[in-house]
């Protein structure tokens, strides 16, 4: 199975632009609503976004490093790895359902952080960084370049890591949008 590199990156760019737009619209909401918890064990909008910021803190830097030091130039197609591919795809909600509910490792758990609207600004900033990285990634080999994960010792192919990262963002933007009873179209 292979994916056209151009299509892969354009898709990530499109989805990221939509997410930025969605979070810009969250900025217009009062902070009390952003902090509203829909149920005891469910996250508020700010908690969803903060969770994503914690992942971006790792992945944006990691992508930047891997792209700068990549040894192989771009190829027309990306060949996904089995686990990387499955992990990325399983992040995306299908219709109304969020597949594979999971626990969150305490390092990436946003509950009880001090959250405000600056959380949203940070997300937007990091997504703009990600857009730049997507463009830079057009010049490197997405399959041969490997990328570390937040789990030490494991790596994905860069193409799969980029997809995993962006799709994980979507998962939680969908979750955040549900808090106000709306749906996020990606």
């Amino acid at each position: 199975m292979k994916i056209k590199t151009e299509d892969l990156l354009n898709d990530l760019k499109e989805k990221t632009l939509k997410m930025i737009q969605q979070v810009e619209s969250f900025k217009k909401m009062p902070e009390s609503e952003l902090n509203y918890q829909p149920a005891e064990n469910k996250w508020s909008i700010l908690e969803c976004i903060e969770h994503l910021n914690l992942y971006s803190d790792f992945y944006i830097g990691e992508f930047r490093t891997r792209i700068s030091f990549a040894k192989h130039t771009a190829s027309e197609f990306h060949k996904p790895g089995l686990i990387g591919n499955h992990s990325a795809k399983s992040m995306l909600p299908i219709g109304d359902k969020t597949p594979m509910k999971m626990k969150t490792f305490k390092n990436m758990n946003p509950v009880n952080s001090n959250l405000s609207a600056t959380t949203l600004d940070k997300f937007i900033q990091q997504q703009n960084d990600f857009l730049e990285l997507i463009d830079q990634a057009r010049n490197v080999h997405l399959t041969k370049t490997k990328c570390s994960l937040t789990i030490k010792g494991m790596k994905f192919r860069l193409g799969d890591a980029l997809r995993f990262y962006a799709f994980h963002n979507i998962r939680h933007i969908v979750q955040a949008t549900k808090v106000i009873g709306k749906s996020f179209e990606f």
Partner: protein
Amino acid sequence: MSPQEFVKSYFEWSGKQIDEVVIERNEYLSKAGQIEKYLYLITHGALRAVYISKEEEFTMRLGYKDSMISSLDSFISGKPSKIHLQAIRKTKVIRLEKDIYLNFVASNPELNSFYTKMMGELVTSMIDREIDLLTSSPFERYQRILKRSPQVFQEIPLKYIASYLRMTPETLSRLRKS
């Protein structure tokens, strides 16, 4: 990703020391009737999963270096196992605790399809195994394993492979010579 990488990541994540145990030839790593609390990575040696009934014993699975093994019936259900894991030679395994393993896989979105994928591979291999057992010709049963896992002939003594293939060691010897 190799089993070794996965195991290494597991220990880094859990913050625990690598848990390695040694079992002598013919000793049991786990026995029927026990509840399986571990997944094992074989680092040296070889093991078999064996089912023992009143009249016979069946070698159900063979494991050697770099393979992961467990009493899966019990690992999945939490009920007592029906099989023994026995060392064919002096063997070293690294043990992953079940609760920590499940937590590791559940807490990291990067891994969230890992378990499903492993289960999928397991089911596929069990279908192959079922076909093995339904194949009436000993020669064909031998050919299937030769094709699927040729390295088994380097790692495991013939008498266990014969048991796994449901034939006598003499029949297997003869098939190998011809």
